[in-house]
């Protein structure tokens, strides 16, 4: 692979939010995107948990990248992520019980998120500490933004509220709160997201010419 030119920090950050958004572009870790994104609050809580785990794991792997034997790197990533997820789970259960109740078992599912392991292998293993931190932050924020967007659509169209505040005053379609709608909403939002990006890039190209 050709070594790309040195990316600036803001480029790395925005890469995680737009170019390689975990939900809309990489289409990885769709389980919570479909399962618990029924309202915006859940999305925010889940996003914060994922940002914490991603940032800590990236930092850990970036710090010890010289000592990991290449043949056992996948078990090492898994162990690191599992440790941080357990720490998050215990801290949430002890100090934030309300958040813990609404997230339920999905906090423990963060261990199997593909994009966290992917980022550790693709980025954190080869880059110094600060860029890894920025990349992890970008990925986490991209995930949180995606969850909030899906949660917002599903909550508004399913319950008529946003963050608990009554906006519409009636329930348009209860279907949006059921699990099946998660697939539909994520699919359509992927279309909108990618199409907007294509149009934006086309306009940018025209401006450069």
């Amino acid at each position: 692979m050709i070594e790309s030119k040195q990316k600036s920090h803001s480029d790395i950050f925005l890469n995680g939010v737009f170019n390689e958004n975990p939900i809309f572009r990489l289409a990885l870790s769709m389980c919570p995107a479909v399962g618990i994104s029924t309202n915006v609050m859940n999305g925010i809580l889940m996003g914060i948990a994922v940002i914490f785990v991603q940032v800590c794991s990236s930092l850990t792997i970036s710090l010890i990248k010289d000592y990991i034997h290449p043949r056992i790197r996948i078990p090492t990533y898994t162990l690191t992520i599992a440790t941080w997820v357990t720490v998050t789970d215990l801290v949430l259960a002890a100090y934030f019980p309300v958040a813990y109740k609404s997230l339920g078992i999905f906090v423990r599912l963060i261990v199997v998120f593909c994009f966290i392991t992917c980022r550790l292998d693709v980025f954190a293993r080869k880059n110094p500490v600060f860029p890894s931190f920025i990349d992890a932050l970008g990925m986490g924020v991209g995930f949180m933004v995606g969850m909030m967007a899906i949660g917002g659509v599903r909550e508004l169209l399913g319950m008529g509220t946003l963050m608990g505040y009554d906006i519409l005053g009636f329930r348009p379609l209860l279907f949006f709160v059921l699990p099946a709608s998660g697939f539909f909403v994520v699919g359509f939002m992927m279309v909108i997201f990618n199409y907007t990006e294509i149009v934006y890039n086309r306009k940018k190209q025209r401006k450069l010419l």
Partner: protein
Amino acid sequence: MNSTTKEILRITFGLTFTCLFAAFVMGAVFVITAKAKKYNEYLNFQEKIFDILGYSETNPPPDGLQLNQIYRYIIEKDQAKYLGYIIPIDSQESKQDAFELVVIDLKGQLNTRKQITLSTENSREDRERKIAIQAVLPEATAVIYADTFLSANLNSKRLAYLLPGKTPGFKTAIQFMLALDSSYTIKGLEILEHQEDPGLGAEIERNYFKKQFVGKTLKRVKTIDVVKKPLPEDYRNYLEPDPWKENSLSESKLQEIHDTYKNNDIYAITGATISSAAVTNGVKNALKKFTYRVQVLDQIISENKIPAAF
């Protein structure tokens, strides 16, 4: 040694070290957060109890409300079986709660009563309770935990009893909590844990099933059964009103519906007869056993003038 053995050794050492370090970090965090986690679990438990007693944010529990837990143990000593109750007692000297162990034989006669050293916080741990019992009864060959019940007292009057219970359901055991008032009429039922099928057996969590038990007297529950008929529409609207429809049923109309169905059997959930019957039988058995046991215990307390705090 050649390079492959070196590689193998490096890999083994690396993996072992990573596992040990991860375990150390997780263990440390667990120890630090264990106390707060237990406290939160107890708060959760208390919230469920207030919910089932009918208290909420708009109707807060009164100030003098006390929740007393009474634990039942099966004690074997001198080659005979006895029932041991750990009950909280009023201690005149100190402000601290004190506990006493009352040992009853299988015929309902008092065998012995001893004061045990146990703090309120430790009384929630089974291990601490066993240690306290074995300290005063060294001759006991076996101390087995049976169950527990709660008594909600207000100004030394019994407001309600709460019985956690377990019954075999369609899949695994169903755990529930039953609330009774002082005359053993059912005040509320809450399903705590279950693994029934969503949409079928899991409907036992819904109000239109749980609330059918509310208001049934002890005499009715002793002969109650499950009936495989569809739930009448007005009864369903009374048990679980639709939150999105403007339900303007007057108080008298609600009372009328309640009286019509008060002495009926439990209407089973469509497609989940076994789960409905499991919960009904569980409630029936828990109620029958509890009323018998608490009457025996109350008789012994009054005969021997034990200063029970409930």
